């Protein structure tokens, strides 16, 4: 009923087009996360759904209502900002009740709704305080409370946690997951943070330069990316890419001096391709032609930076007691099954 549908949505600032015809369907109650590099249009797209930016062309529907030209207030959305955007001169309670009050709700109803939100978010002890007297996490909780109170059909979050420090971020992330489970509303969430995206999302939308690159469940994107961009973007440390060529129905990887046989339909002989391999799928064995440039030991895990003999770089993950040292020469090992291939031209995945 209250999913969000974008239909060939386009945004131009003057002559500059920043959103290039986005089509997207978000189901009722789904938690959808927008990720992508900085400046790719995540915030813009979110704000278009909110009605804070005008939509140049295309259609935005919430439920079955066409909201493309509606005022933000009439869309049934609530937004949570990165900077919280709490009214600093009002108490927590007033902040949460303000929208209702201005829209003429009766006092008793406001009280009830605020109390309910405050219960959900465990804000009861702070209702009388002003935002300045709250910690970052509490502030963000109030700003979520303000959104809840209005009972919107869709919640919009624009990097709500990026102003918090690492510890709080983890805590609030868990909280938002719980909230989504509890009230079950549709949520759209913009973030830079891999971990947030992977852990919160029902569906991740990867954007690049105003276009959708891929949409899917987090682990689907991780395991089965459609193109090199998504493969490189999802997962940390990023997937390694080595250049390769299709030779004799096999893939030749010059930097490793190795040819692998992969169980898929390879393109024409001689085609240049990218060979993608995740750090955790690689092992280094002592002795060989590759050189360890740097080893970053973090305790349980080490990231070992390896320079191949033709200058390509690879990062591998090492665990266990024996780890490579800088300057050692190694051979890289991996299962041909774990490799992903991408067309060098189109960067599309070869399957």
């Amino acid at each position, binding site marked *: 009923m209250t999913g969000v549908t974008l239909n060939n949505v386009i945004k131009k600032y003057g002559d500059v087009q920043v959103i290039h015809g986005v089509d997207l369907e978000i189901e009722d109650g789904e938690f959808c996360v927008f990720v992508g590099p900085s400046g790719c249009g995540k915030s813009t797209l979110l704000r278009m759904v909110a009605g*804070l930016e005008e939509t140049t062309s295309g259609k935005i529907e919430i439920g079955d209502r066409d909201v493309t030209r509606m*005022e*933000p207030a009439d869309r049934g959305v609530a*937004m949570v900002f990165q900077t919280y955007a709490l*009214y600093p001169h009002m108490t927590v309670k007033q902040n949460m009740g303000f929208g209702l009050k201005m829209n003429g709700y009766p006092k008793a109803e406001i009280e009830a709704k605020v109390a309910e939100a405050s219960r959900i978010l465990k804000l009861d002890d702070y209702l009388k305080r002003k935002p300045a007297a709250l910690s970052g996490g509490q502030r963000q909780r109030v700003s979520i409370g303000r959104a809840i109170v209005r009972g919107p059909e869709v919640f919009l979050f624009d990097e709500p946690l990026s102003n918090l420090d690492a510890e709080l971020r983890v805590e609030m992330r868990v909280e938002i997951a719980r909230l989504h489970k509890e009230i079950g509303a549709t949520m759209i969430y913009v973030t830079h943070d891999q971990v947030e995206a992977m852990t919160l999302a029902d569906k991740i939308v990867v954007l690049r330069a105003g276009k959708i690159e891929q949409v899917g469940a987090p682990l689907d994107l991780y395991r089965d990316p459609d193109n090199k961009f998504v493969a490189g973007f999802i997962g940390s440390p990023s997937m390694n890419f080595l250049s390769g060529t299709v030779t004799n129905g096999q893939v030749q990887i010059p930097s490793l001096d190795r040819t692998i046989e992969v169980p898929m339909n390879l393109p024409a002989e001689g085609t240049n391709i990218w060979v993608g391999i995740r750090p955790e799928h690689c092992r280094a064995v002592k002795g060989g032609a590759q050189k360890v440039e740097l080893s970053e030991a973090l305790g349980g895990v080490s990231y070992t930076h390896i320079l191949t003999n033709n200058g390509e770089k690879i990062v591998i993950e090492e665990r266990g007691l024996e780890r490579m040292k800088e300057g050692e020469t190694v051979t890289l090992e991996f299962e041909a099954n774990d490799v992903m291939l991408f067309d060098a031209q189109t960067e599309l995945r070869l399957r």
Partner: protein
Amino acid sequence: MFPTPLERTSRSWQIGYQSLLPVAVIAWLLPLLAVAMFSVKPSSDFTGGDYWSWPSRFAGFENYGRVFTDSPMPRYILNSFMITIPTVIGAVALSCMTGFALGVYRFRFNLLVFFLFIAGNFVPFQILMIPVRDLTIDAGLYNTKLGLVLFHIAFQTGFCTLFMRNFIRALPFELIEAARVEGITEFQIFWHIVLPLMKPAIAALSVLIFTFIWNDYFWAVVLTQGPQAQPVTAGITSFNAQFGVAYHMLSAGSIVAALPPVLMFFLMQRHFIAGLTLGAVK
């Protein structure tokens, strides 16, 4: 911090600095201190040609007393308040609105209107003199406090708009967006959200405008005459005419005229300085 904080310097330099401070202040305020001293000297000191010696006796009470009893000074001071306070209220009110419009909305002539306000504020006001005087006369407001107030409000609106607009610009715009998403009308946003947040700016601006208007002389001369409407800056000239060469009285009168803004400054120092810098910087 620059220059090197005093704690990091040598002992002798510290002592030198500490003792230089009062000397410097006295030198800086010397002309004013002289006037302050004049104002408590008895008239006999002057007729004896004895200007610079220590007051032969303290005549402060009688001199200042006479300022209030023997001259229209109280009237002038009252006028000053009756001109200054409505102007402050009016200019601040207008500029809250203009500042809001220019700071929050993106529309075609935004910058143009804004620059017009700034440019108008920088204009040498002599170019306004004749037409404004005629306008005031035609409106039957010549020699009324209202005439002066209306003009001051209009002219100060330029500066105040610059000030308010820049202040509002510095507020997080998300506050307004958040309110819009919540379905709060534009006027409610102005009244319930932006205005409360502008309190510091309003305080700073009020103090600043208060002194500007209190100290205005030019327009007082152009638009008013006589003790019904003239503020104390203009009044002081007729006070001088009244007391001629009675320097003790002139000094006392000058100090009385200067006092309200000075008090204002000391009471509201923080706002005042905030105003000076905020207004101009951004």
